[in-house]
C-alpha cells in the first residue's frame, strides 16, 4: 500500500460516503455537505493518481483539474446554500418533505 493507492482509495471512500449522504440524508445542509464529500473524494483520487508520475514532480494536469474543480464546487455550494436559505425563508423547512421535518 503506497500513497499512490492510499489517496485514491480514501477518495473512493469519501465519494461513496457522499453518495450515501446525498441519497439518504434528509436535511438539506447535510445534502450540501455530502455533495462536498463527493468533490473532495474525486479530488483525492485525482491527486493520488497524479502522484504516480516518475518525474520529479507529480503530473500537473490532474492538479490543474483539481483547482478548476474546486472553484466549480465552490460555485455550486454557494448556489445550493442560497437556495436553501431562500427555501427556508419561504417555507420554514429544512427538508424537502414536511414529514421528514418532523422526524428530524
Amino acid at each position: 500500500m503506497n500513497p499512490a493507492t492510499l489517496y485514491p482509495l480514501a477518495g473512493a471512500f469519501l465519494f461513496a460516503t457522499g453518495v450515501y449522504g446525498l441519497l439518504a440524508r434528509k436535511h438539506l445542509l447535510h445534502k450540501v455537505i455530502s455533495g462536498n464529500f463527493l468533490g473532495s473524494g474525486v479530488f483525492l483520487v485525482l491527486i493520488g493518481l497524479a502522484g504516480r508520475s516518475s518525474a520529479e514532480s507529480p503530473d500537473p494536469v490532474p492538479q490543474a483539474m483539481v483547482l478548476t474543480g474546486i472553484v466549480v464546487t465552490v460555485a455550486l455550494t454557494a448556489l445550493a446554500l442560497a437556495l436553501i436559505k431562500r427555501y427556508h425563508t419561504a417555507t420554514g423547512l429544512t427538508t424537502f418533505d414536511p414529514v421528514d421535518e418532523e422526524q428530524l
Partner: protein
Amino acid sequence: MSDRRRLAALLPAIVAAAVLAVIVRAVWSLPPEAEGLSVAVSRVAAESGIDNKITVVLLDLRGYDTLLEVAVLMLATVAVLSLREDRDALYRRISERAAPVLAALTRLLVPLALVVAVHLVWVGAVRPGGAFQAGAVLGAAGILLALSGYARPQWVGRGAMRSALAVGLLTFLGIAMLSIVAGGELLEYPEQSRKTLILVIEVLLTLSIGASLVSLFLSSASEGPKEAGR
C-alpha cells in the same frame, strides 16, 4: 417503519457500496506508475520559461478551461443575486449593527488586505498564488467594509458592482479574442506581450472574484423564515 421506507433507507447504502466497490476495483487495477502528461507539460514549461507547471496548464495549455471556470464563478454569483431578497430594511440592519471595534479593525485590516492581494497576484506567475487567492483576500476586505458600515450593502446589484463582477470575464474574453485579431487561435497569446496580458487578466479577475464573494455574502442576507416554527 414500513417495508417500503426500510427499502428506501437501504437503497442509498447499496448504491454507495456498489460505487465504492467499482472505484476500488478500478483503482486497484491501475499500474503503480504512469506518466500522464507530466513529461510533455515539463517540456512546454521549459520552453515558455514559466516555472510553475500548474500555472502553465491552467493559463496556457488549458486556458480555455480557466476561461469557462471564470464564467462558472460569475454565473453562480448572478444566480445567487437572482435569488436575493431585495429589501432596504434588510441592508440597513446589517450596516446599523456595525460595532466601533469592528470599524477600527477594518481600518487596520483593509489596507493590509489590499497589499496582500496585490502581492498574491504578482507572485502568481512564479509561485502559488494568483487571482483566486488574491480575490479571496479582496473579498474578505469588502465584506469587512460592508459589515462595519463603510460600504453600503445596498450596492449589491447596482451598476458599479455589476461592472466589477463582469470585468474579469469580459477582459479574459477580450484578450482571448485579441489573439485571434493578432492572427492566432483563441487564447494564443502573442509571445512578446504574453506576460503583460496574463497580468492584466489576473488583476481584473482578482477584482471580479472579490466582487463575487462580497455579492455572494451580502445577497444571502434575509429576514428569516416567514412562517417560523413550522
